[in-house]
């Protein structure tokens, strides 16, 4: 599905990602772990084209997308749920979803009913402005907005960050369902290791911009956690 080979990404002159390589297979979910500031968000921004890498190569289903604009990457099948969710605050819930439909070149005249089957919490608030929603509602909307695009690859950046425990579970259920139905490949950034263990076999660890470990969950030993995931 996705092959990232040796990318280097910068903010201005600061070198953030160093020779990062990563692969995701069809329908697979991979968890990327790492401390705050390790470069996880930057990796997703590089894949999405918000911060394209300066060198290296990114391929989606065999197509070189390294130099493509974000919207072309989206059209090829990548949908993005960014950290902080980035709902458009002055658009309604329905309009936030319609933007995603129109952006993908789909019929945006109305929100498909299947959205509310996945996200019942959104059903009664379609005319509410995105900016006034609770964190959990915003997160559901952000995932709904990505899924209506029927992506091949879904990028999820800390989807449970800053949410109440009950809401965290709701979001985790949604991710499990995506995984179980093999809706699409998923690159998940997550800090909660118990959840990671629940949902996936494969992980990769970013430490100060470098992939230091990757493999199957059994290799995520206490020692590895102590070395790379604890301050």
């Amino acid at each position, binding site marked *: 599905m996705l092959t990232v080979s040796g990318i280097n990404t910068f903010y201005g002159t600061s070198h953030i990602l160093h020779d990062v390589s990563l692969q995701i297979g069809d329908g697979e979910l991979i968890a990327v772990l790492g401390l705050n500031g390790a470069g996880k968000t930057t990796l997703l921004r590089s894949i999405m084209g*918000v911060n394209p890498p300066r060198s290296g190569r990114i391929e989606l289903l065999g197509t070189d997308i390294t130099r493509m604009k*974000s919207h072309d990457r989206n059209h090829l099948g990548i949908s993005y749920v960014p950290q902080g969710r980035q709902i458009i605050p002055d658009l309604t819930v329905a309009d936030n979803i319609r933007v995603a439909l129109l952006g993908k070149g789909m019929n945006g005249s109305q929100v498909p009913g299947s959205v509310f089957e996945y996200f019942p919490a959104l059903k009664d608030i379609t005319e509410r402005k995105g900016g006034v929603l609770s964190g959990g509602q915003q997160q559901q909307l952000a995932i709904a907005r990505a899924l209506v695009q029927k992506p091949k690859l879904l990028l999820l950046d800390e989807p449970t960050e800053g949410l109440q425990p009950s809401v965290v579970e709701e979001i985790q259920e949604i991710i499990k369902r995506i995984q179980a139905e093999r809706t699409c490949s998923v690159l998940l950034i997550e800090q909660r290791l118990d959840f990671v263990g629940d949902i996936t076999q494969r992980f990769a660890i970013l430490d100060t911009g470098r992939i230091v470990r990757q493999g199957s969950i059994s290799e995520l030993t206490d020692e590895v956690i102590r070395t790379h995931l604890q301050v």
Partner: protein
Amino acid sequence: MLSERATTLQTTNLWLIALGAAVALLVVLVATGTITISQRYISQMMIGVSVAAILVIAAVGLAIIFGVAGVINMAHGQFIMVGAYTAAVVGQLGGNTFVAIPVAFAVVALLGLIVERGIIQWIYDRPLETLLATWGVGIILEVLVKVIFGPELYYVGAPRMLDGGIRLIGRLPYPYYRLFLIGMAILMLAVTFYLVFKTNFGLKVRAVRRNRAMAGSLGINTARIDMLIFMFGSGLAGVAGAVLAPIKSVSTTMGFSYAVDSYMVIVLGGVGNLLGVPTGAFIIGEAETLIATGTNSVIGKLLVFVFIVVAIRIVPRGIFGYQERR
């Protein structure tokens, strides 16, 4: 960031409430006979409305380009001028203002397309360079038009059906063309409003305006939205030139004063909301006309300038605020 946005909203509401209260108070005072407004002032106010209409017509194209693409087009006055020359050419070919409006829209939208693709698209995120570049474009346009059309003034007549006028209150006649300008101002605002709030294109525009990176990640070609908005705003400047041509002689330097007026309107009104344009235009138009009635037009303009400088101290981003490009 969220709280900052909330504060802007609250200040906006406060201003609207204050403005509403002032108008209400005035109405009450007049109705109860506490103060009397002479007929002369009422007809001046009506003239103020048409001055405001001219300001709206001139400013709306500038405002949408600034509001969405984040570019202050320093060639805006010259775009209006090109629209007016287009109307002059249409006039010589036998067409009237109604024919000139779509032609000027098309001509200046095309001009906007050339400027955007040729220059602006590369420098959107460098505000100082866009200022200088569009300023340069304005100078080039003035020279080019002077070379093609010569230094003499052109006159464009109003359509025959808009000749004459009605007598409102008092002795002053109110020309039909002023009514037409008020109608045009409303129409241009309505079309812009419809485009931005009622169409799929407008939904994408609003997403891009609010969060460019996220809109791109959702599949929207943000560069194309910027280009189309630049074309649309330029086209509106062309329409402004076409409908304003009959009230002033057409010359290569005619755009300057319209541009200054337009900048004043968006500085006062802000472009965070489309209502900023009519609000700013109404306040400036009425203030200018009413002060000019008491004194004279030069002092009127001067006092309006002073007023705006004071207003910028209180509402630095205009009554409705604006957002930086991001």
